[in-house]
C-alpha cells in the first residue's frame, strides 16, 4: 500500500469526526482507518424485532464485549479483580457509539483546573473557554437536544434541538429537589437526523440516538473520498519509529487471513480508546523508545480513573397515578452538586434511574396475570431510584498495562491495577447519605443503597494531556510529547474526568484536533 497522508487507528466517535473533517477539507486525502473489530449490520429490521420480542433480547454488538475471563485487573489492598471491563465498550466499526446512552454533557470550567482548585489531580493544559466553540460544533454534529435555558456553564450557542421534557414519573423527585434547593435539569441526549431502526438501539420513542457508524458509512460511500479506506478486522500491533522524534507507520494483522502488513503514513492518530492506546504505545518498543513509545517518563497507562456510580432506591407503598418511566432513558438530572464548591469533596452528577418506576406489562401477561390484576399491580407498590456519578481523581499508582495473553481480536489483554484512596470511600458514603435525604424527602422508604465497583465505560486518564513531557503523554494539541507526527484523540488524554459522561468532550477535542491538523496541512501546502 502506498504511503498514506493519515492513518487513524480505531473507528469510533473521535475517529469519525477526524476523518469527516479532514476529508471535507481535502477530499483527496489518503486516509486509512484500521479497526480491530468488524462491521456490525445496522438498520436491520430482523434485529429490531428480535430485540423487541424475544426474551433474551439479543443485541448484535454484545459479542464484541470483553469477556470476564479477559479481566486481569486488580484493585486496592486485597487485589481482587473488581474493575469491570465486560460491557464497557464495543469493538466494532463505529466503536462504542453502537451501544452508548447518548448522554451529551459539557464539562464545566472548573473541571479544567482541578489541581489549581483542589490541590489534587491535574489541570488541563487548555481551559473551558478554549474548548467552548468546539463543544458547540460537537453538539451540532451529534444533534444534541438540551434545555437552552439551563445555566450549568457558559454557552455561545443554543442547543440545536429542544430537550426531552421531564416525564410525569420525574415529578415527585423534582419536587424533592426543589425542597432541598437542588436545581433540576433536563438530560441532554445526542440524537440523529432520523430514526434508522437499527436493531442496536433501545432509545425510543424517537431518541434516534447518534451512532458514529452512520456517519462513517456515509464517508465510505461518498465517491468524492476516493482515497479513504476503512479496513475492519485489522489489528494494529506496533507503531514504527524512523527516529526519536518521528514515526513512519504501523504494523497490522488482518484477522481474516492472518497476514501481517506494514503501512507508512505522514501522520498517525490513535483513536482506539483509553484501553488500547496505552497498550499499543507500550508494545511499540524500539531502539528509540526502549520503554514504549512516548513512555520515557513512565506515564503511559497511569492515572487511570472512571466514575463510581452511587445509587439509592426508595419504595412507595402505592402508585396511584400508575406512572412508569415512559422513556427508556433518563430525563431528569441535576448538576447542582457538580459545582466548584463541591470539587474538593468529589463532584456529584445526579440523575433519576431510567427504569423506575418500571412495569413490564408484557411479562405479567406472559406469566398469565389477568388485566384486572395487572392494573392493580401498576397502581401498587413501586420503586424510584436516584443515581449519581462521583468524580474521582486518577492516582499515579493506578495503572493500565499489558496483561498476559491475547483476546479473540488478537489484542493484548488488559491489566488494571487500580488504587482508591480511603477518602474516596468516605466521600462516597457522604454522598450516599445525602442522596438518601432526597429519597426520604419524596416520602419513600429507603430500601437499598449501592456503591458500584469501578466500571470501564468512562475510563479516562491513561495518556493524559499535560504542559510538559515530565507530567503527561500528550501536549495541548494532543500530539505525543516530542514526536512530530503522532497524535492521540481518546478519553485517555483527559487530565481529569469530571463527574459527567466523557463522549461530548471527546467529540469536541476531535473537532479541535481536526481543525488544528487541517491548518497544519494548509500551511504545508502553501
Amino acid at each position, binding site marked *: 500500500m502506498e504511503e498514506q497522508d493519515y492513518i487513524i487507528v480505531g473507528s469510533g466517535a473521535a475517529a469519525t469526526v477526524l476523518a469527516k473533517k479532514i476529508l471535507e477539507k481535502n477530499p483527496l486525502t489518503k486516509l486509512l482507518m484500521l479497526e480491530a473489530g468488524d462491521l456490525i449490520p445496522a438498520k436491520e429490521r*430482523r434485529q429490531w424485532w428480535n430485540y423487541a420480542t424475544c426474551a433474551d433480547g439479543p443485541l448484535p454488538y454484545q459479542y464484541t464485549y470483553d469477556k470476564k475471563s479477559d479481566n486481569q485487573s486488580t484493585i486496592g489492598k486485597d487485589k481482587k479483580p473488581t474493575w469491570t471491563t465486560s460491557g464497557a465498550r464495543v469493538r466494532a466499526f463505529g466503536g462504542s457509539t453502537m451501544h452508548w446512552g447518548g448522554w451529551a454533557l459539557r464539562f464545566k470550567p472548573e473541571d479544567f483546573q482541578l489541581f489549581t482548585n483542589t490541590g489534587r489531580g491535574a489541570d488541563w493544559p487548555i481551559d473551558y473557554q478554549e474548548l467552548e466553540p468546539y463543544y458547540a460544533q460537537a453538539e451540532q454534529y451529534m444533534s444534541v437536544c438540551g434545555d437552552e435555558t439551563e445555566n450549568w456553564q457558559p454557552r455561545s450557542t443554543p442547543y440545536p434541538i429542544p430537550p426531552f421534557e421531564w*416525564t410525569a414519573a420525574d415529578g415527585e423527585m423534582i419536587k424533592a429537589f426543589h425542597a432541598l434547593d437542588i436545581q433540576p435539569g433536563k438530560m441532554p441526549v445526542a440524537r440523529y437526523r432520523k430514526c434508522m431502526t437499527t436493531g442496536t438501539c433501545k432509545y425510543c*420513542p*424517537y431518541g434516534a440516538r447518534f451512532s458514529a457508524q452512520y456517519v462513517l458509512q456515509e464517508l465510505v460511500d461518498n465517491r468524492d473520498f476516493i482515497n479513504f479506506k476503512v479496513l475492519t478486522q485489522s489489528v494494529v500491533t506496533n507503531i514504527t519509529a524512523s527516529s526519536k522524534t518521528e514515526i513512519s507507520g504501523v504494523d497490522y494483522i488482518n484477522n481474516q487471513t492472518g497476514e501481517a502488513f506494514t503501512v507508512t503514513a505522514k501522520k498517525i492518530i490513535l483513536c482506539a480508546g483509553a484501553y488500547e492506546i496505552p497498550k499499543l504505545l507500550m508494545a511499540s518498543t524500539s531502539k528509540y523508545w526502549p520503554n514504549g513509545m512516548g513512555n520515557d517518563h513512565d506515564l503511559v497507562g497511569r492515572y487511570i480513573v472512571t466514575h463510581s456510580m452511587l445509587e439509592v432506591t426508595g419504595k412507595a407503598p402505592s402508585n396511584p397515578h400508575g406512572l*412508569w418511566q415512559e422513556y*427508556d432513558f433518563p430525563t431528569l438530572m441535576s448538576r447542582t452538586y457538580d459545582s466548584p464548591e463541591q470539587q474538593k469533596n468529589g463532584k456529584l452528577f445526579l440523575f433519576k434511574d431510567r427504569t423506575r418506576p418500571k412495569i413490564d*406489562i408484557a411479562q405479567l401477561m*406472559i406469566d398469565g396475570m389477568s388485566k*384486572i390484576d395487572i392494573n392493580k399491580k*401498576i397502581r401498587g407498590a413501586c420503586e424510584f431510584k436516584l443515581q449519581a456519578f462521583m468524580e474521582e481523581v486518577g492516582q499515579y499508582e493506578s495503572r493500565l498495562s499489558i496483561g498476559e495473553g491475547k483476546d479473540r481480536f488478537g489484542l493484548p489483554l488488559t491489566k488494571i491495577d487500580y488504587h482508591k484512596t480511603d477518602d474516596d470511600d468516605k466521600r462516597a458514603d457522604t454522598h450516599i447519605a445525602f442522596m438518601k435525604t432526597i429519597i426520604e424527602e419524596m416520602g419513600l422508604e429507603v430500601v437499598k443503597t449501592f456503591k458500584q465497583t469501578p466500571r470501564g465505560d468512562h475510563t479516562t486518564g491513561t495518556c493524559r494531556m499535560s504542559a510538559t513531557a515530565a507530567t503527561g503523554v500528550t501536549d495541548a494539541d494532543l500530539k505525543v510529547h516530542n514526536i512530530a507526527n503522532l497524535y492521540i484523540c481518546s478519553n485517555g488524554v483527559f487530565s481529569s474526568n469530571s463527574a459527567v459522561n466523557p463522549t461530548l468532550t471527546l467529540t469536541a477535542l476531535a473537532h479541535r484536533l481536526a481543525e488544528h491538523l487541517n491548518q497544519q496541512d494548509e500551511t504545508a501546502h502553501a
Partner: protein
Amino acid sequence: MEQENNTMGGKLCHTIVAPTLIFSEPCTLPESQIEKLWQIFAQIGDHWKDVYNESKNLKSAWLEMVKVKTEQQPSYSAEYNNAILVIEELTLLYGEQDAYQQLFFNYKIPQSQAEKNVAKPHLLLTTLLAHTKYYVVDEFIRMQVLSGGFKHFGGQSNTSGEVIKVKGLNYKGFVKGSRYRNEDLVRTFEPKS
C-alpha cells in the same frame, strides 16, 4: 391467577423436541397459514382487551414481523406451523374459547424440581406446546403490548376493572411521533409556576 395447568393438550402437544428453535429453511408462509397465525395474535387482544378495535391496525406491523422472522435465518416457519397444529389440537380438545383461556392464563412451561433454578427458561422447552407458548404466544404478547397494547393498562378503571381512561403514552420499544413533534411523546411533568 388461575390454577396452573402443566398437563393440558394431547399427543401432539406433549411430543418431546429439542428446546432450540425448530429448524426450517427460510420461506414464505402461505396466506392460509398466516391467517391462522393471525388468529392467535387476535385472541391475545380479545382475552386481555388490550387493543380493543386496534388489532387490525397492528396487522401491517405484525405481518412485517412474521415476514422477517420466517424469510430470514433463523427462520420461524416450522415454529409457526407447529403453533398452528398445537392450537388445532387444543381447540379440538377444549373448544376454541377454553383452549386459549387455558393456554394464556393457566399453562406454565413444565419444570422439574431440579430445573427450577435454571436461569434460561427456553432451555426447558421440551414439548411442542412449550415451544408454542415461548416462541409464538409470548413473542406475540410482547409485540402487541409495545405496539400500543400498553396504553390500555394502568388507567382509571370502572368497577369491572375495565380501563375507562387511557394513561400511558409510551412504553419501552414503542415508536411514537417524529423528531419534530407538537404533542408530548409521554406523560410529562408540568411544574407549578
